[in-house]
């Protein structure tokens, strides 16, 4: 698998330049290339659509800024959907960067898209949604938060949970209708702590690296749904009828991935043409 001679004469930096140009075009002027919504994304969307009014949904920001828009857009898309429906949203973070990600999502950022204003959806803090902040401890925290959802005693701003009407309906895992966790890891542990132990439905927002191993949990019914990488977020934005950051980045990804395939084919072509010339 070593580099051939013909191909090594071509400077790989031209390729880098090509990638920059190909991906800069759709950023400057979005093209809106078509896409098909996958059944998996549709399944997650429909599950949330089907939740009865007043159901409590836990939304966990466990990812990190390092994943960039891959997971940031998923978090924003699901948050918007939950706000648009008559649901009670309890926001937590089992990852240390959660507070930063939550703030970025509300204010709008280059990894989560335009700002989200819960007031615009007619949602009131403390009644319809609440932000509990970062709960350290990963696996231990999953278990502890399930048996006692008042673990933090106050919300992130320091208000006692007794004073928040929404928390009266959310005391243990038995009150949860769904957990949505956008995360870069700890998937198996979450399934063990929440699904295996209490049969709570779970939807994951997962990066492309981790998704392949999670499909088997969906087949087994241990996982209700999953958004995969930025494509999952883009499809979700389409289902919400509000294309945002993920959809516009999909243009870039479309072109960039086709460029990679073209490079693969061209690399082979040049290699073999070069070799046949050398033989002559």
């Amino acid at each position, binding site marked *: 698998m070593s580099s051939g001679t013909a191909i090594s004469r071509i400077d790989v930096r031209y390729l880098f330049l090509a990638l920059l140009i190909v991906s800069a075009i759709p950023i400057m002027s979005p093209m809106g290339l078509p*896409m098909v919504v996958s059944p998996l994304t549709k399944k997650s969307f429909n599950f949330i659509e089907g939740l009865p009014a007043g159901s409590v949904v836990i939304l966990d920001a466990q990812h990190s800024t390092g994943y960039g828009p891959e997971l940031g857009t998923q978090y924003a898309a699901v948050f918007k959907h939950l706000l648009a429906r008559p649901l009670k949203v309890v926001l937590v973070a089992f990852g240390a960067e959660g507070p930063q990600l939550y703030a970025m999502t509300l204010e709008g950022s280059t990894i989560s898209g335009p700002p989200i204003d819960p007031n615009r959806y007619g949602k009131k803090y403390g009644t319809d949604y609440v932000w509990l902040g970062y709960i350290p401890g990963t696996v231990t925290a999953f278990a502890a938060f399930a048996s006692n959802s008042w673990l933090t005693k106050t919300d992130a701003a320091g208000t006692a949970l007794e004073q928040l009407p929404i928390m009266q309906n959310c005391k243990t895992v038995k009150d949860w209708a769904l957990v949505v966790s956008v995360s870069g890891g700890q998937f198996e542990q979450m399934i063990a702590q929440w699904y295996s132990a209490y049969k709570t439905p779970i939807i994951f927002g997962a990066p492309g690296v981790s998704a392949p191993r999670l499909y088997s949990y969906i087949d087994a019914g241990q996982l209700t749904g999953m958004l995969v990488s930025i494509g999952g977020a883009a499809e979700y934005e389409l289902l919400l009828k509000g294309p945002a950051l993920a959809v516009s980045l999909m243009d870039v990804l479309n072109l960039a991935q086709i460029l990679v*395939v073209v490079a693969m084919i061209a690399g082979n072509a040049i290699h073999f043409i070069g070799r046949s010339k050398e033989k002559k």
Partner: protein
Amino acid sequence: MARFQLRSVALTITFVLGFLMIVEYFISFKSINDLAANIRDAATVIIGLASIVGVGNITRNHLRNISRRGDNWIPSIIMLVSVWIPLVIGLLGTQNHPIYRYVFVNLFNPVGNAFFAVLGFYILSGAWRAFRVKSLDGTVMVLCAALIFLKNAPVAGYLWSGFNDIGAWIMNVFQAAGYRGIIIGVAIGSITTGLRILLGRETGYLAERRGGQE
């Protein structure tokens, strides 16, 4: 020989604690489970404080470089500054000191994320340089890669839905089979090497002197 005795002590510790970690997993006996958890916590502390060696190594190498006016002696100054100023601020205050946070969020994170994003370029150059259809092996690799890239590019799936089906089959069946075989192999290798370590038969990491063996 002091070094020899030290090695024996080290190997005894490895044997006892290693087997404790294994046995603990299979029994539920509170005092032993707690002991193992405490040892894991203690190991986290020890491994963290090993950073002292790291900071020492950086400081010594770059001080030496600066005093010799060696290559890169100006960046060496930047290295020392980047280690010691945050270190002093962080140790005297905390990680939440405003200057520390500012540097972390506005310089450290962007550099890290940009470094990570370099992978995007390398995915392209790797595909260009290394994916050859020279043999049957290479052909399988290239086909799988190309078909998955096309599956993940929605526009391809829009043009021909077959890309989605073939891609899904490769992910869920074809590569999953190979994945499983490799995982089992790695697990067996881990157990073997692990046992050699615990029994003191794998001591290369303790820089065992093997004489003139070639």
